[in-house]
């Protein structure tokens, strides 16, 4: 178990290293640079700036320097704002983490509830309604959904403010972000639960005299959770990429927006920092979902 975990951790570090390398080279391979805009600065000014940030050195040397700094925990400063990358990322991440975590909780919680309801009321009204809505949410892209929500609830109806000092303005972004994974989990849970309720061990539980609701909660749900747990990895990926869009539509100052701005402005250290940070989270979540998987399903053995 521990050996497996250490092995996975090692692999994870290699993956992050690879992502870092590829991003660095790809970023530099694209023509243009941080100080080239429509209104380019004078060549003299540009040279000074580039020298200051080490951009005049050969790329290989830049990379070695960068890796060295990262290993010391120094991600550099933003070319645009001059702020520490770590500070920028952590500030942005506070908003994004809040948004992402709420979206995950909402998606999993309601996904399980709706999935269970649909399974238990199979082919009756609640099931039909849930399946209709989830099909809709799965097929509409999140930026359309986000814009639609904003338009209807904030602008037309005016129920939810676009911005507020409390967390009320987070409501719509969370919904926009959670609807797709929630729908996915609903459908996953429904089909799994139906499958499991037909299993022999459910009949055994009934034959023992276990009450109907307890059979669902104790014997079926636990098994139905297994695929949902494996979905946690892809779910995080979705939330991470989804938040890029949602944060932009709702103008939340999260990591996603930081990331997009960094790319648009060619803020190299910020692009690198954000990429590394996001991939660490992604890989961490996948590892975590594997561990939970193991706890829930004793048949899984690590080797």
């Amino acid at each position, binding site marked *: 178990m521990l050996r497996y975990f250490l092995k996975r951790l090692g692999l994870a570090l290699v993956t992050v290293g690879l992502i870092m390398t590829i991003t660095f080279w790809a970023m530099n391979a694209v023509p243009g640079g941080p100080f080239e805009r429509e209104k380019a600065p004078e060549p003299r000014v540009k040279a000074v700036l580039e020298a200051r940030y080490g951009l005049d050195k050969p790329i290989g040397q830049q990379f070695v320097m960068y890796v060295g700094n990262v290993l010391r925990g120094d991600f550099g400063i933003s070319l645009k704002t001059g702020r520490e990358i770590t500070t920028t990322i952590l500030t942005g991440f506070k908003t994004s983490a809040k948004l992402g975590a709420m979206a995950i909780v909402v998606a999993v919680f309601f996904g399980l509830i709706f999935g269970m309801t649909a399974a238990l009321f199979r082919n009756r009204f609640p099931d039909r309604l849930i399946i209709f809505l989830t099909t809709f949410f799965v097929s509409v892209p999140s930026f359309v959904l986000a814009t639609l929500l904003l338009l209807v609830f904030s602008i037309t109806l005016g129920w939810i403010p676009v911005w507020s000092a409390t967390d009320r303005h987070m409501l719509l972004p969370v919904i926009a972000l959670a609807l797709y994974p929630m729908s996915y989990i609903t459908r996953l849970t429904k089909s799994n639960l139906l499958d499991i309720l037909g299993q022999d061990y459910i009949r*055994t539980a009934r034959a023992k005299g276990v*009450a109907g609701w307890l059979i669902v909660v104790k014997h079926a749900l636990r098994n139905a959770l297994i695929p949902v747990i494996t979905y946690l990895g892809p779910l995080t990926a979705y939330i991470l990429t989804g938040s890029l869009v949602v944060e932009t539509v709702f103008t939340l100052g999260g990591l996603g927006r930081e990331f997009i701005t960094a790319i648009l402005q060619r803020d190299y250290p910020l692009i690198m920092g954000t990429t590394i940070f996001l991939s660490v989270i992604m890989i961490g979540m996948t590892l975590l979902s594997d561990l939970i998987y193991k706890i829930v399903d004793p048949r899984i053995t690590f080797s």
Partner: protein
Amino acid sequence: MNMQGLHEKKEGVILSVRNLSTSFFTGSGEVKAVNGVSFDLEAGKVLGIVGESGSGKSVTAYSILQILTHPGRIVGGQVLYKGVDLAKFSQRQMREIRGEQISIIFQDPMTSLNPTYTVGNQIGEAIRLHTSRRGSEVRDRIVELLTLVGINEPQKRADQYPHELSGGMRQRIMIAMAIACEPDILIADEPTTALDVTIQAQILELIQKLQDELGLAVIMITHDLGIIADMCDDIIVMYAGSIAERGSADDIFYNPHHEYTKGLLHSIPTMEKTDDMLIPIAGSPVDMLAMPAGCPFAPRCPSAMKVCMTDMPEELEIGDGHFASCWMNVKDMVMAEAGEQHE
């Protein structure tokens, strides 16, 4: 309804199934899986139910416990347990019966246990549901039961998951779970079909031993008349949802009165008979959605007469407690009466 009386031990007939009919209402029509089945089970006795695949053995058992799944339901008849009709019980009332008064073990021990809980947990669940034992008392009882069903290192086994145990061991676990609350009746639905031949004998021996020690009444379901020959007091032969013949084990083995029973007996391998002497029953089972008007076995019956195709034979008592539903018996009886009159 007087539930209290159900907890008292009783002599004689404890389960009396009367005219039980169970159907599945499928998209393509009503499947009459069990069609007017009647039999009695005496306390402490072993009743065998035999019949080929699809004859309605499992559905009969599930109907008794009301663990049928959609779209199946009991459409008629009674299941009198100690005189009370279980067929009228709600699911809630049945929960007090299942696992406490009447238990069942299934054909496939590999899939009948929940893979995500330890076997101890699953046995403990039954104990907690039906007894007042809690905490360490439950644990003690689990270990006691595991020992009783012949499992070594019960302390260790209790904490293992089903996938860590062999098929035979899992069936022992199922049996431990079934007898955990000392039921009156144990239904064993083809308990050895999924197991190796050597393990089969061990499991049957175990059931016999427990039946003897705990005074259980056992309903032993099988499609193989041969393996239950020694252990049954009475036997029911089912065909296409109906009882073809029922009687004591001796009646069935030495004095069969239904062509289907005779066919079954011919297809049992014994020491004297070699493989090429076995005669399988010709033809294939009936289509349950298009049941023939007459005797369901008629299309495959070597001695079928005209009447067999058009009318369902009544159950006729051949000897004390020995019944068969076959026109041949009616014919024999009529001829015998005619012979008497002739003299």
